[in-house]
């Protein structure tokens, strides 16, 4: 059960992170100028090209990924600690 929740949290948060940063970033780049998340302006400061994807959507996807991790942390705090079979060694990383 715990392993399933672990995997679900990793796949969901990882998927949202990659979608918000890499996938939408690639679309933004291929869609032409401004290539990034900020609008392109001329010397007078007028916007001459706006991002294809609203940066709020991209930041919301990343925030959703962090929210998934937070929910996972709350889940770990709320459920009893499981003893893993065959783990006699002291915890070395993220237990």
């Amino acid at each position, binding site marked *: 059960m715990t392993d399933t929740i672990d995997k679900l949290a990793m796949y969901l948060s990882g998927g949202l992170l990659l979608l918000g940063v890499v996938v939408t*970033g690639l679309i933004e780049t291929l869609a032409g100028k401004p290539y990034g998340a*900020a609008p392109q302006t001329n010397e007078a400061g007028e916007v001459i090209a706006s991002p294809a994807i609203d940066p*709020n959507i991209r930041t919301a996807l990343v925030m959703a990924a962090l929210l998934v*991790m937070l929910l996972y942390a709350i889940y770990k*705090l709320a459920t009893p600690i499981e003893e893993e079979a065959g783990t006699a060694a002291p915890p070395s990383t993220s237990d």
Partner: protein
Amino acid sequence: MSHNTQTATNTGFSFQVSGTWKAYWVAMLRVLTGWWFFHSGFGKLLDSGLNFGYAPMYLEGMSGTTLGPVATFMAGFPNLMAALVPLFETLIGLALIAGLLTRLASFGGVVFMSLFWVGNAGFSHGLVNSDFMGLLLFVTMIVFAAGRYYGLDAFVEQTRFVQSNPKLKYLLG
């Protein structure tokens, strides 16, 4: 976060931070990230004490962003924000430098960096900028339990109190 590290990748490679160089580098990242926040917070404290007036203004200016509703709600308590921002930055920094309550402090760092990342500068340097990298550093501190390596959490976690309340390791570590 209690995934079996021996088989995590199914490629025959294990990942253990107990290796000398890995532990050393996780500790270095922790201390340097801590110094970054301590310097920022303590500088504000020296400059304006517990009255950092820019904090509520900054939060107010975040309306229209992803975290706008949260930020403008926080901006509704200007005196509290003006005091808490420099104080928490300093405490988060000190906690990371000492490696004490590392995961709890890093959670605070994630909150700070989320607000900085979403609210700062309009992404003129791209969505993946230094604020985002700072945010990822704090998440890394939590995932690696960075306080266990040359940090005080290594000793605190061995106390009888923590041993009998093992869930505290989710705030320490």
